[in-house]
């Protein structure tokens, strides 16, 4: 909150609130202030772009499959639950 009392946003502040912005958790007035800043700041525009690409890249990580022995144990547990 305190970051936005002034009418202007500094780059060092933008990097702290960028997740609020990307998550849509920023009140409209603050969002306008941030977007205004972006139109005039190449550094922050690059930063936001890096953040978006970071999120995309993280999204390409894949959880490993369940190992077959564990799957086997789960199916045994399922059978005994079913027959209980």
């Amino acid at each position, binding site marked *: 909150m305190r970051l936005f009392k002034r009418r202007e946003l*500094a*780059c*060092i*502040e933008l*990097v*702290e609130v*960028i*997740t*609020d912005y990307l*998550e849509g*958790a920023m009140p409209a007035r603050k969002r306008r202030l941030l977007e205004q800043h972006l139109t005039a*700041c*190449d*550094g*922050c525009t*690059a*930063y936001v*772009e*890096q*953040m978006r*690409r*970071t*999120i*995309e*890249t*993280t*999204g*390409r*990580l*894949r*959880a*490993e*499959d*369940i*190992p077959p022995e*564990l*799957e086997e*144990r*789960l*199916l045994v*547990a*399922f*059978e005994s*639950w*079913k027959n209980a």
Partner: protein
Amino acid sequence: MQPVETSVVEALRAGDESAFRSLVAEYGPSMLRVARMYVGSRAVAEEVVQEAWVAVLNGIGRFEGRSSLKTWIFRILTNIAKTRGQREGRSIPFSSLAPDDEASVDPDRFAENGHWASPPRSFGPEDRLLSDETMAVVDAAIAELPPSQAIVISMRDVDGFSAEEACNALDISETNQRVLLHRARSKVRQALEDYLG
């Protein structure tokens, strides 16, 4: 409950093994990944996942659909993982956030007026971001995060949970979830910048 979910729940209650298998295929990998962050070893994480599924089966008769099935399953998982982690002397502080003294970007990169002195540049062409080496950098950066941050970024950005699903699965507030996500993403971004820059 969504209609699709109702039919899955009913199939499970009726003892339909293929419904169980497909749920395990859908959520099992994420469950194992999340469990691994709470406990000390892969073997224990597998036990946690097994225990969670047994609890899911035993509880499915009482599942009322007040949360989504996914949220409910992960809530069970994280409760079991938490208990198990505590027994091992590992407890993950989700709520007692350290004061906001962690800068998202090294303060030295800004001038005195708060504007960039050393601004970020583009990460460059897409194919470099897609390489196995880059993915390994992301994986390693997540592994180095405090567990609460690693769990939140895994759920949100790897497993595609919505903010609400992550909050419900972890029983934390929206603000708390967002702060953890912010710290996690900021550090992963920094790791990528260090690597690609």
